[in-house]
């Protein structure tokens, strides 16, 4: 009797021991903060600063700051933050930032991405011919930041600005 209960206890212990640590995995969370550019004139000098906002007027410049973090216990690899330029706005040329991330854009609705210098898109002319054009920032439809590796506990931010139509 005592030997059997001991074996059962040992078996149970073994099960618990092997089931214990779940395999390590990454867990990314992301949030977006919105801010609006406000111009103030004090004593003849104009200063611009960004203030958090839920609203904007046509013509206003809005800055989106995306904050991401790896709350898991393992590194994340090939993290791609993709953000379509919101409908009703135009991307502000040169405004995208993101240290440690590879920055690419799309001008064809997210079908293809490339660095700005190389970014082109195809247009079908009325004649039926297809023309390849270099995209201007106003024509960007999506932004992508690619982070090769994000260690557990690490965070980062990427940002860009748009102008409201």
């Amino acid at each position, binding site marked *: 009797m005592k030997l059997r209960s001991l074996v059962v206890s040992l078996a149970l212990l073994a099960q618990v021991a092997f089931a214990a640590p779940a395999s390590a995995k990454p867990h990314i969370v*992301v949030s977006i903060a919105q801010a609006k550019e406000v111009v103030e004139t004090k004593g003849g000098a104009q200063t611009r600063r960004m203030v958090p906002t*839920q609203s904007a007027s046509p013509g206003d410049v809005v800055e989106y700051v995306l904050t991401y973090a790896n709350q898991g216990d393992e590194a994340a*690899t*090939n993290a791609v933050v993709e953000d*379509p330029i919101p*409908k*009703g706005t135009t991307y502000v040329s040169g405004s995208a930032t993101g240290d440690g991330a590879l920055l690419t854009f799309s001008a064809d609705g997210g079908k293809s991405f490339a660095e700005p210098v190389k970014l082109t898109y195809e247009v079908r002319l009325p004649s039926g011919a297809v023309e390849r054009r270099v995209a201007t920032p106003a024509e960007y439809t999506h932004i992508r930041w690619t982070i090769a590796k994000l260690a557990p506990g690490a965070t980062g931010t990427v940002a860009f600005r748009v*102008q409201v*139509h």
Partner: protein
Amino acid sequence: MRSRLLSPSLRCLALGTIALAIAATAPQALASTAANTAISNSATVTYNDAGGIAQMPVTATAIVTVTLVPSAVTLTSPAAQSIAQGTTATLSYTITSTANGPDIYSLSSAAIASNLSTVTPVFPANVSLGGTTLAAPANNGDTTITVPYDGTGGSTVNGIGAGSLVVIGGNVYTVLSVTKNSGNNTALIGLGSPIAGGSVAAGQIVGERKIFTLNEASGVVSTGGTGTQTITTTAVSATSSGATTTQATPTVITVNRPTLTVVKLVSVDGGATFAASGNAAPGTSLVYKIVATNSGATAASQVAFTDVIPAYLTYVAGTANATAYGAAVPLTEGSGGYTYTAGSRTVAYDPGGGGGTVAGSGELVLFFRATIN
């Protein structure tokens, strides 16, 4: 075609888009987005674990709501008009929104009187007008336009609903219906007549139009027969006092009143000639002519004559007649408003109605005879 640009880094962008605009269509007003439109930014993060296995993507969304940019309305200048003293002039104003969202416009109006008493105009305190923008181009022949969803349920979008008048691309249309599609972030407005006069680009304002009435009583003319009230009305956005419009041409209301003068003449030659005075022998039958002249621009009504026969004369019955517009009408004592009261020696003529009305620049003449005793 984009809205005004703010920072130096956008200079290159500006040049590019301006060049495009010149090549394309006729110049149009700046593009805009309707107030209450939700601009939604959704970012997605995809990633793998250390072993390269794809993990569940995560998404974050943030929303910016577009605000109203107050804008001065367009306001018509009602045409000048003439009224008779004692009546009220009615001015009809057309007011149209040029804003990207609903707003309330406070009205004020001043009446400047000339040769007339001061009268304060009566008009509504304010007018509310809806406004939105085209979310997609409106093409010639379209009977439905697409505008942004305004974030609410109900049958109006940014204040515009069935029965509203709206101006799109300079033309006015009646709204028949509003259908909202929150999932698509749009609303469809059904029009009573198709878009005409060419396509209207996305981003152009769809402004509500209303008509309001201002009433101005005539006041009292000070001297002579005519005075004027000059009306100037202003509409200002209740959201921003800078968005203000004053009617371009003040409305002049000319107020006319009748001006009667009376002249009494006598004929000593049986009616051949009349003068202010004369000499005659006893027994002569004098003919008296009393002329009431209206030098004003508007009719005088209820004109009535009274005259007392002086001493040494005897009134001759059955000799009176009155002329209106040149036609002589014989008068009988005791009828048609004509009487002779012997006790007071008073001739009175008060025909009333049309007979007693003297038109502007007209006259009414009463004749009767009396014999020198």
